[in-house]
């Protein structure tokens, strides 16, 4: 009843759930780069933007298609929440043409042209204006873009849907549209995350339930295990939501993680009980014996798992901290629930029914048991070969780890073939690049940006940036000044330069201010002309691309420092993503090292022997090195989900070793020799370990079917980790334990009788 009550309290928090998909939140609110980014956005009036791309196989610049585009823009201007004044499109944005002393300021498309020639002249005009080309229309004339700034990010979903309705009603055959822009991506991600959470958690539950049923054949015992799992999920998630933490991509995976882990302890108890019961044939006595031998390992496995996840709380990335903390809490909840609920539910089953079930269930256990026993004898006999093979594998793993490429790109969190991935690819093929980074130049006094020397330097930086193929387009105040100069001189390209005379430069800017809307320059320069912003559009948002661009610019700036008093800083979302990823790599390494030390310490305390502690760390070390080695060898990017897995591995792959070593040791303590102890651990304990590994591996596999890649990655990677872990535990540990049995056991002789002096069993 108490358990139900607590569960109800935690469960009641669910309606307050708050989803967070903003990649900025990967950084602390006061992280310096994030502060600069917020300042940049505010200072330069940068709104969240939905980008609509429209493509036509036969070319957009035909009267009929342009008429459709005009109607689409009209429709968009009627959508609530759109900042209509700032919509950038063929019919809302001005172009200035010049001819024989006349500056002609008109909409890019003043009216829908009546013939093809008129339509094509619009395309040529866009191409001739560097401020518009690759922004409003693609070079090949097959795509146009409409930029729709929105008042608030939380309206992105509705505005996006309304745009979609308008566009789908308007487009004909051969025409397609793509919606891109961060608000759309975030929004879609939030929706899908919710769906995945709703789909994956029950699916995992179902798979585990089925598996447990196959293993134990007794619904009355399997159901309580599942109840324990579900309750721990409710406790963990309830506390998370209740404390006001937001559900991020990581924390949305908490249920899927907790479920298999929560089932582990139950499986150990059930497995032990099932194996002992046929001999003892009394449920109370069997339970007492099982719990006696299991209590310590269960406590330690839970604590180590919790420590593994808890080590994530050392990470500098808030969502990862939240994830680690609440999984750790869930694990300890699961432990508490398991050691109370499971024995209680066993006691509730009538003795006769238990006897009946266990006779039925003997067959499959027999197969598994025989297999494991002979495996146990085999690995002991070939312990040297195995140790050498293990070392070789470990070396390969280390080599693999050294080849790991650290990289992430939030768009890749959507599976290949997702409409957003397609939109991303198409839009970046057609236009200047959807990945925004900003290069902010800051002077000491107001007005310094109007200094010709400063703007010339900006132009120079842009030239360097454009050398990198990933940089599609850059725009700055320097471009605007050069464009005004050109237009003012009847389009003479000789004037596409930064004027050396400060007054001339100032008057060019003034002319631009005068001929446009009040906010036209805002994106590029602040009102005091103290900061200026260079827009760097990139065609890929991979962190390694951003890093390369950043490094090549830094190298140039080392050689050619900026004018006196000018500082140059990066900002923008693509840069922010790179920053948190760097933090994550370092943070995760520290977290895992810290966790490793903590677990090792726990092992030394548990076994009261540094040597045994070291041996028990072997499966964990192997699992992590081999799994990450594989990541490096197959060339998969080390991204956020992969990084997070390391700490999970820490907590979980030690479990098997704890059970194995603890049971081996207690056998020795009870007077068995090493060979006998080995025979023993390959009976019940090995069966429990094998069952558990199976539960986790299979339990995580459904995640591979998810549509979001972080789920897929975690699912597959986890199965891999567990496989390595169980293989090392069962394959490598016996040899080491056997060889060192005499050495590690001697210090403990004060407490337990020396097996050499005792009777042979």
């Amino acid at each position, binding site marked *: 009843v108490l358990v139900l009550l607590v569960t109800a309290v935690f469960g009641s928090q669910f309606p307050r759930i708050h989803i967070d998909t903003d990649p900025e939140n990967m950084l602390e609110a006061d992280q310096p780069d994030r502060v600069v980014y917020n300042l940049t956005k505010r*200072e330069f*009036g940068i709104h969240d933007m939905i980008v609509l791309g429209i493509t036509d196989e036969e070319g957009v610049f035909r009267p009929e298609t342009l008429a459709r585009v005009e109607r689409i823009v009209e429709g968009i201007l009627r959508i609530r929440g759109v900042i209509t004044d700032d919509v950038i499109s063929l019919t809302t944005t001005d172009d200035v043409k010049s001819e024989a002393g*006349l500056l002609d300021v008109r909409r890019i498309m003043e009216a829908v042209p009546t013939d093809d020639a008129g339509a094509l002249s619009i395309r040529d005009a866009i191409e001739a204006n560097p401020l518009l080309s690759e922004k409003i229309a693609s070079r090949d004339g097959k795509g146009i873009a409409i930029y729709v700034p929105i008042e608030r990010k939380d309206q992105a979903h509705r505005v996006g849907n309304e745009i979609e309705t308008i566009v789908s009603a308007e487009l004909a055959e051969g025409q397609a549209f793509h919606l891109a822009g961060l608000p759309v991506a975030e929004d879609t991600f939030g929706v899908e995350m919710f769906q995945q959470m709703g789909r994956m958690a029950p699916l995992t539950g179902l798979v585990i339930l089925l598996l447990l049923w196959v293993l134990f054949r007794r619904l009355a015992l399997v159901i309580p295990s599942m109840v324990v799992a579900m309750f721990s999920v409710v406790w963990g998630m309830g506390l998370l939501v209740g404390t006001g933490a937001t559900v991020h991509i990581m924390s949305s995976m908490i249920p899927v993680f907790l479920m298999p882990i929560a089932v582990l302890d139950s499986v150990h108890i059930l497995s032990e009980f099932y194996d002992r019961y046929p001999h003892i044939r009394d449920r109370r006595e069997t339970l007492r014996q099982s719990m006696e031998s299991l209590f310590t390992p269960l406590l330690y496995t839970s604590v180590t798992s919790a420590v593994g996840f808890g080590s994530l709380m050392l990470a500098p990335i808030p969502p990862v901290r939240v994830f680690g903390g609440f999984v750790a809490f869930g694990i300890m909840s699961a432990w508490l629930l398991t050691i109370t609920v499971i024995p209680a539910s066993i006691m509730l089953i009538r003795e006769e029914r238990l006897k009946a079930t266990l006779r039925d269930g003997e067959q499959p256990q027999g197969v598994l048991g025989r297999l494991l026993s002979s495996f146990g004898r085999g690995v002991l006999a070939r312990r040297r070969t195995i140790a050498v093979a293990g070392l070789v594998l470990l070396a390969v793993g280390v080599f693999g780890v050294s080849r790991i490429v650290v990289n992430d790109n939030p768009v890749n969190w959507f599976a290949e073939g997702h409409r957003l991935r397609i939109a991303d690819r198409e839009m970046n093929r057609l236009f200047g690049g959807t990945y925004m980074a900003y290069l902010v130049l800051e002077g000491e006094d107001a007005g310094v940006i109007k200094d010709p020397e400063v703007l010339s330097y900006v132009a120079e930086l842009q030239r360097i940036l454009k050398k990198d193929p990933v940089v599609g387009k850059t725009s700055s105040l320097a471009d605007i000044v050069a464009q005004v100069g050109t237009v*003012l001189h009847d389009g003479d390209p000789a004037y596409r330069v930064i*004027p050396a005379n400060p007054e001339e430069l100032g*008057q060019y800017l003034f*002319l631009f201010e005068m001929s446009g809307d009040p906010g036209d320059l805002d994106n590029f320069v602040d009102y005091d002309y103290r900061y200026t912003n260079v827009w760097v559009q990139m065609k890929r948002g991979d962190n390694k691309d951003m890093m390369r661009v950043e490094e090549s610019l830094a190298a140039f700036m080392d050689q050619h420092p900026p004018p006196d008093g000018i500082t140059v800083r990066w900002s923008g979302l693509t840069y922010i993503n790179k920053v948190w990823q760097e933090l994550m790599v370092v943070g995760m390494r520290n977290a895992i090292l810290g966790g490793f030390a903590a677990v090792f310490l726990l092992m030394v305390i548990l076994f009261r022997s540094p040597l045994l502690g070291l041996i028990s760390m072997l499966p964990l070390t192997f699992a992590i090195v081999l799994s990450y080695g594989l990541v490096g060898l197959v060339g998969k990017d080390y991204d956020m989900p992969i990084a997070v897995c390391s700490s999970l591995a820490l907590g979980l792959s030690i479990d098997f070793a704890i059970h194995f070593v603890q049971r081996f040791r207690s056998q020795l303590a009870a007077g068995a020799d090493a060979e006998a102890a080995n025979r023993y651990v390959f009976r019940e304990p090995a069966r429990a370990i094998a069952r558990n590994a199976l539960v986790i591996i299979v339990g995580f596999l459904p995640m591979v079917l998810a549509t979001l890649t972080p789920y897929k990655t975690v699912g597959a990677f986890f199965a891999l980790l567990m496989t390595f872990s169980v293989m090392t535990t069962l394959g490598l540990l016996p040899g080491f334990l056997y060889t060192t049995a005499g050495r590690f056991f001697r210090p403990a002789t004060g407490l337990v009788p020396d097996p050499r002096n005792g009777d042979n069993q």
Partner: protein
Amino acid sequence: MNRAIVCSFAILMALICMPGPGAGAEEPSATDVATRSLEAFYYPGDDMRTRVTMVLVNAQGKKRVRELTLLRKNFGTEGDQRYFIFFHAPADVKGTTFMVWKNPAKEDDRWIFIPSVNLVRRIAANDKRSSFVGSDFTYEDVSGRDVNDENHQILRTEEMNGRSCFVLESTPRAGADYARRVSWIDTERWVPLREEYFDVRGEKVRVFTAGAVEEIGGHWTVSKRTMANLQTGHSTEVTFENMTYNVGLKDDLFTERYLRQPPRKWIQ
């Protein structure tokens, strides 16, 4: 179109000859109110000279200040006007001049002189709803529109800033960037004290407010005015100083020659 303007001037003359509403006459029609308001706001005097301080305020509350001298002269009886603008500040643009010939029936003619390159350029733009020298006011807000461009309707009479006002709703006849505007027009002085512009979505997007109204040379004049863009958070505040009507500006002042060599007499 021309006939319409002539027509509206005829109505105007009739109105001026009529006793004011205080004399117990019938309530004026919506079109009468609109016509008198346009006349009082955009056409007072034969000509006018003033020093203008224009403060642009962006959403972050930062300001850009422009100082200019504004000369205006009415031409003919069909609503033609010419404007001459000399920029004093910011310092790096001092000497830049700008001229607008307002042609009610067709595109305005605009010229700009850029002193640093000694170039005069004519600017062609058919959009009177575009920003006036980068401010939140449009050309139309500065130089007025024709009474027949919109349908007018008096919604009610109410007090605004302690003044009795007609609340007039005007709906453009042809497509415009606003769907409807509501103005509060002083029932005695005929100047607008407030205007609200609504877009096709029914959202209020721009608000004009009269900050100060003074009587200058017998004309009630809004000497301080603000236009705020509610969508972008941007606003422009304009203050007229040393305003004088009927100073005797010559016609040839509004030509390209004077753009290059601004008349010292009028520019201080």
